[in-house]
């Protein structure tokens, strides 16, 4: 009898608690997944697909739902990985592939046959041109994702490194190597990694 009473009491209390929680879950219900948006915001938006997802947003969604590791974004490199790991509250994981130096696509226009295949492949609409006309890459929009190289039937797209200009030069960390152009006392010029 005593036992029965104890069980009933405990069960009743548990039921009450359950009801309270059920109501609370209604009241505090949240729409959408702000985490996905936050992750998407730290991705480089190259839409390159190197992560195995068809773009940055799909990858962000996958990371937010926990179905994929935080280290799959190659162009984002370590920084994006650390930012995502930080957001997700998981330990950082090394990015396996080394990001290539920033590149831009160039179309050798005299070889272009105007097939528009690269235009369709470009995820950020950075290639302009019409059918049977030369196409050209808008440099300021190109993310260097290389997705246009594969579809080109005549292989007239080159990925070239971004030229370094004085205006975009920044200091490297103390003691870290950096290309230094130097004049020797004899008047020769050397370029070397210091």
């Amino acid at each position, binding site marked *: 009898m005593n036992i029965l009473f104890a069980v009933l009491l405990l069960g009743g209390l548990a039921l009450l608690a359950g009801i309270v929680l059920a109501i609370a879950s209604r009241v505090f219900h949240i729409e959408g997944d702000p985490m996905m948006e936050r992750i998407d915001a730290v991705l480089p938006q190259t839409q390159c697909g190197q992560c195995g997802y068809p773009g940055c947003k799909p990858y962000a969604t996958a990371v937010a739902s926990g179905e994929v590791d935080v280290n799959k974004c190659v162009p984002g490199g370590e920084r994006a990985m650390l930012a995502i790991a930080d957001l997700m509250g998981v330990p950082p994981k090394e990015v396996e592939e080394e990001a290539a130096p920033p590149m831009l696509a160039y179309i050798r226009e005299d070889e272009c046959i105007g097939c528009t295949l690269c235009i369709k492949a470009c995820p950020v609409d950075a290639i302009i041109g019409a059918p049977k006309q030369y196409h050209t890459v808008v440099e300021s929009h190109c993310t260097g994702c290389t997705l246009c190289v594969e579809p080109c039937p005549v292989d007239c797209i080159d990925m070239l490194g971004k030229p370094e200009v004085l205006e975009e030069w920044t*200091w*490297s960390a*103390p*003691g870290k190597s*950096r290309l*230094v152009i*130097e004049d020797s006392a004899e008047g020769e010029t050397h370029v*070397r990694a*210091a």
Partner: protein
Amino acid sequence: MSLLISSPHAHGGDSIRANMLSVIIALLPAAGVSVYLFGWLALFLIVLCMVGCMLSEWVCLKMMGRPLSRLGDGSAALTGLLLALTLPAAVPWWMALIGCVAAIVLAKQVYGGLGHNPFNPALAARVVLLISFPLHMTAWLVPMHAPVFAAVLPLNLYDFSQCWNLFWLGPEAIGKGLDAITMASPLGHVKTEWSRGIGAVEALRNYDYSYLDAFLGREAGSLGETSALALLLGGVYLLARHTISWHIPVSFIVTVYVLAALFNAVNPDHFAPPLFHVLAGGLMLGAFFMATDPVSSPVTPRGQIVFGIGCGLLTWSIRTFGGYPEGVMFSILLMNCAVPLIDHYLRPRVYGK
């Protein structure tokens, strides 16, 4: 070799080594007083601690594969000296060595060496010793030249062979018990008397306490803490050399003084007078040499003042209400814990903001 090098291309010439050296120099008067009071024992202990700390540092650097030249920055030697000055003269040599290892390995090198230790190594080691060996760490050798106790002193500390035996083999070797050659410090005495329901003023009277002796250092205590005069000299030297700033010592000492004065004014029989608090125990040593340890104290002036006030508050509270007679060491360590937060929240005002 041509690395990218940024301005400035000039330097004021300050170095870690110079900083450490000037602290060691500033500690010389206090060390001198300790030798004057405790004879060869003090010298043995100081040398042992300095050597012990430097050896520990050397082993750590070697094991961690860091440049052994770091040993030359003088920080380990300074830690050894500071540790020695906080120890009672009658402490067994192996205990002092344990302290050295605790200071260098546990409190410093584990964190990556100089500059990264959150706690003052010497103090951390002393707390380790105090908690582990409470008896030995509160047994104060009767000093030479303390006028009141000169007659009581059962041994001559200026006698090399007697001290040598005492140092390595303990009091039994010279046929004395620890109790026979040690006594209570003024702070300890006040605490014990309190527990018997006797007020501080009465307690000091029956201890034959004298402010002048406390100022000059002719009283029981750890090696380097007894003489306020010697420590003050060193402190002024450091201030003059800009090795430390005034913020911590002044706010620390003033806080203790003000608190003690307030409570003493309310109940003069029960609470010890402010000057007693300022001269007693390790306050001077702590305020000028421990709390100002750059690595484990705040960097901003405002933070340093808060740090000093916190130290003072805790010191006085622990001395007055706590279980331990002396609170300087605990209070500095406790405030060391708060340094990152103090540094984070008490930054200077930025120009134009």
